[in-house]
C-alpha cells in the first residue's frame, strides 16, 4: 500500500485519458509493478492460502450438493454457516443504521466522520449475508422466489427476505455518494445526497423489522428451543441486542481504520475517533442494560428461575453473566474513566457475546432434547473452511474499498456535502 496517494477528481476527456484515469484509481496512483509488489505481505499470503484451499470446497457444494461439505441434517437444518453468516453477522452489521440514525436523525453532528465506515461495514455485511444464503439454500437460483413468484405472507422468513433485500438496496444508495465522489460525478452526487434522510429513515424501519424478525423466526419453535432461550420476547431481545452489537461493531470498525488505515484517514476522523468511541461505548452500555433487563423480565414472566439450576441453566448463566453482564460492566468502567483501550476491548467482548447468543439459539440449544444432541452439532471442517473463506473475502473487499474510496476521509471539493 503506497503512502503518498494522489487522487484525481478530474473527469477523463479521451479514451486514453480514461484508461490512465481508471488505472490510477485502481492502483491508487501506483504503477502496476509497484502495486503488485505492494501486495506481497504475510497477511495477503494467509488470505490467499485460505481462498485457494476453500475454492474446491465451494465447487463441490454446487456440483455435489449440500450434504458433501455442510453439516446438513433434518434435526439441525441450519448449521454453523448460517448461525455465523446470518444470525451472528446481521446484528453487527446494524452498525450502518445505528450510526447513520445518530448523525442524520438524532442530529449528533460529531458522528459524521464515522457514518461512512459504519455504512460500508453494514453494507458489505449484508451483501455477505445474502452470499451465505446463496451457499446454504438448496436451490440458490430461486433466491428471488419470495419476492416475485409466490408469497408466504404468514411467514416470518418472508419478512426477513423482503427486508434484507430492500435494506441492501438502501445501503447501496446510502453508500453511493462515496462511490460517486471516487468517480468524480458531481451531478449524481448531488442527487444521491438529496435523498439521504428518506433513505436513513427507510433503513431504520427495515433494520428494526428484520433484526427483530430474526428472533421472531424462533417464535414457532417452543418445543425445540430450550425454554431459557425461548420467550415471547425473542423479537425484542434480538432487536435490543442488535443495537449494542452495532455500536460495538462501529467501535471496532473505527479502531481498525485508525490502526490499519491511518494513512487513509483524514485529520477529522483521527481526532474524532477517541471521543466517538467513548460515545458509542456509552450507548452500547445503556442498551446492554436494557437487554439484560429484558432477559430478566422474560425469565420472571415465564417463571423460569428453576431451570437455572440445570446444566443448560449454567450454560445460560455463562452467556448472560459471562458475555453480557461482564462486558456491560467493562463498558461502564471504560466510558466513565475515559479509558479507550478498555472500551475497545469491551466492544470486542460484547461482539463475541452476541455471536455466542446467536449460535446458541440457532444451534447449541436448538433441539436440545434430541438424543445425542451435542454429538450432532459439530460441523465438518469443510464448513469451517467455507466460513473462513467468506470472512477473508469480506475483509479483503473492505480493505480494497477503504484504500480507494473516501470512507475515512473527505475529498477536497466535497467537504460538508453529506
Amino acid at each position: 500500500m503506497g503512502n503518498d496517494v494522489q487522487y484525481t477528481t478530474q473527469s477523463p476527456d479521451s479514451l486514453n485519458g480514461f484508461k490512465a484515469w481508471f488505472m490510477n484509481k485502481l492502483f491508487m496512483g501506483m504503477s502496476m509493478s509497484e502495486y503488485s509488489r505492494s501486495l506481497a505481505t504475510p497477511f495477503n499470503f494467509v488470505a490467499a492460502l485460505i481462498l485457494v484451499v476453500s475454492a474446491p470446497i465451494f465447487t463441490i457444494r454446487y456440483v455435489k450438493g449440500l450434504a458433501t461439505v455442510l453439516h446438513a441434517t433434518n434435526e439441525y437444518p441450519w448449521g454453523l454457516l448460517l448461525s455465523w453468516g446470518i444470525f451472528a453477522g446481521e446484528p453487527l452489521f446494524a452498525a450502518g443504521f445505528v450510526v447513520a440514525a445518530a448523525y442524520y436523525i438524532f442530529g449528533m453532528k460529531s458522528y459524521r466522520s464515522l457514518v461512512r465506515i459504519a455504512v460500508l461495514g453494514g453494507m458489505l455485511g449484508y451483501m455477505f449475508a445474502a452470499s451465505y444464503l446463496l451457499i446454504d439454500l438448496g436451490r440458490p437460483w430461486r433466491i428471488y422466489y419470495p419476492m416475485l413468484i409466490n408469497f408466504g405472507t404468514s411467514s416470518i422468513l418472508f419478512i426477513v427476505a423482503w427486508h434484507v433485500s430492500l435494506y441492501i438496496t438502501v445501503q447501496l444508495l446510502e453508500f453511493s455518494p462515496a462511490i460517486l465522489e471516487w468517480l468524480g460525478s458531481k451531478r449524481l452526487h448531488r442527487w444521491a445526497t438529496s435523498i439521504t434522510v428518506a433513505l436513513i429513515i427507510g433503513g431504520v424501519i427495515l433494520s428494526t423489522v428484520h433484526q427483530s424478525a430474526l428472533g421472531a423466526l424462533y417464535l414457532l419453535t417452543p418445543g425445540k428451543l430450550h425454554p431459557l432461550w425461548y420467550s415471547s420476547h425473542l423479537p425484542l431481545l434480538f432487536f435490543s441486542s442488535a443495537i449494542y452489537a452495532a455500536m460495538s461493531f462501529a467501535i471496532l470498525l473505527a479502531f481498525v481504520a485508525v490502526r490499519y488505515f491511518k494513512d487513509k484517514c483524514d485529520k477529522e476522523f483521527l481526532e474524532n475517533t477517541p471521543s466517538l468511541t467513548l460515545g458509542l461505548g456509552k450507548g452500547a452500555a445503556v442498551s446492554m442494560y436494557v437487554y439484560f433487563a429484558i432477559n430478566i423480565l422474560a425469565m420472571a414472566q415465564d417463571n423460569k428461575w428453576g431451570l437455572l439450576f440445570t446444566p443448560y441453566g449454567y450454560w445460560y448463566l455463562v452467556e448472560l453473566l459471562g458475555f453480557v453482564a461482564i462486558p456491560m460492566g467493562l463498558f461502564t468502567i471504560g466510558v466513565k474513566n475515559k479509558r479507550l483501550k478498555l472500551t475497545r476491548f469491551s466492544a470486542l467482548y460484547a461482539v463475541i457475546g452476541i455471536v455466542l447468543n446467536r449460535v446458541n439459539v440457532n444451534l447449541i440449544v436448538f433441539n436440545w432434547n434430541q438424543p445425542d444432541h451435542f454429538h450432532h452439532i459439530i460441523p465438518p471442517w469443510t464448513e469451517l473452511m467455507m466460513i473462513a473463506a467468506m470472512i477473508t473475502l469480506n475483509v479483503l473487499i473492505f480493505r480494497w474499498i477503504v484504500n480507494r474510496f473516501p470512507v475515512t476521509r473527505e475529498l477536497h471539493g466535497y467537504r460538508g456535502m453529506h
Partner: protein
Amino acid sequence: MSEIKKGRQTDGSEHGMTQDAAGPSSGLTRRNFLSMSMLAGCAAIGVPSHAQAMPEFEGWPKSYGMLTDFTACVGCRSCERACNEANKMPAPDKPFDDGSVFEEHRWPSAKALTVVNRYKNPGNPSSPVYRKIQCNHCLEPACATACPIHAYTKTPEGAVIYNKDLCFGCRYCVIACPFNMPGYDYESPFDAKIVKCIFCYGRIKEGQIPACAEACPGGALTFGRRADLLKLARKRIVDYPEKYIDHIYGEYEVGGTSWIYISGVPFEHLGFPTNLPKKPLIELSKGYLSMVPVIFTTFPALFGALYAMMHDKAAGKEDSHDKHQEVHNG
C-alpha cells in the same frame, strides 16, 4: 395459504353468527380486545399480544384423519413397504422383513416417508411397543406458516402437501415443524427438495385409502373422518381403561393433527414431544406479524418528526432561548 384463508373465512362467519347470537356485549368485548392488543403492541415492539380477537380455525370440517393404535402394532413394517411402493421410493438399504432395523432409532427422511421404531415398554419389558412415524398433518401446520414461498398447502381433505416447484430450499419448515417430520434431500445438487408423507393425497382424491392403512394387517391404522376417529379413539379408551392411557395424542397438540394416536404407554416413552402448546404455532407469531405494518406506519412519522425537531433546534437556538424566558416570566 389461499385455501387455508378461505377456510378461515368460512369458519369465521360461522363463529361470527354464534357471537351475534350470544348478544351484542360479546362483540364489544372482542372489539375492546382488539384495540387493547393494538395499544399493547405499540407500547412494546415485537411482543406478541395474546389476545385472541380473531375466531380460531379449528380445521377443515369433515377432513380425513388416521387413528394409530400402538397397542395393535406388531412391527411387521408392512406399512413401510406399502408406502415405499405407493410413492415409488428407492429400495431401502435393508429389506422390509429385516428385523435388525429396530436396533437403531430411525426417522423419516428423504429416503423413507414413514418408519416403524421399537421402544421399550416401561410396564412390561418383554413386550416392546412399535411406533409408526410419519408427518402428522397438523390442522394448522407450522411448516405452511413458516414457508416464505407458500409451497405448502393444508388441503380440505386433511393432507399437508408440498410443491417442490416453488421451494428454494431454505428449510425453515424443517426448523418450524414441532415433530421434525419434513426430510430435506441434501444429497441432490440440482433437485434438492423436501420429502415427507403427503397422506397419499392422490389416492384419497381417487377415493382410495392411504397405502399404509390398506396394508396394515393388525388393525393398528384406521382411516376415516377425523371427527369420527376421535369418537372411536375415546370409545376404545373408555371400553378398555386398563389397556390404554387416557390421552389421545394429536387431539389438541399444536392445535390438533389429522393423525391421532392412542397408546398403552405414555407418549414420552415413544419419542413424542410432550412440551407442545395446545394452540396452533401460528398463534405464537401472529402478534409479531401484526406489528410489522404498525412499524411501517408509525416510524416514518416518528423519525420524520424527530428529524424536523433536531434540525429546527439547530437552526433556532436563540428562539427557543427566548421562549424559555417568556415561559419563565409568565
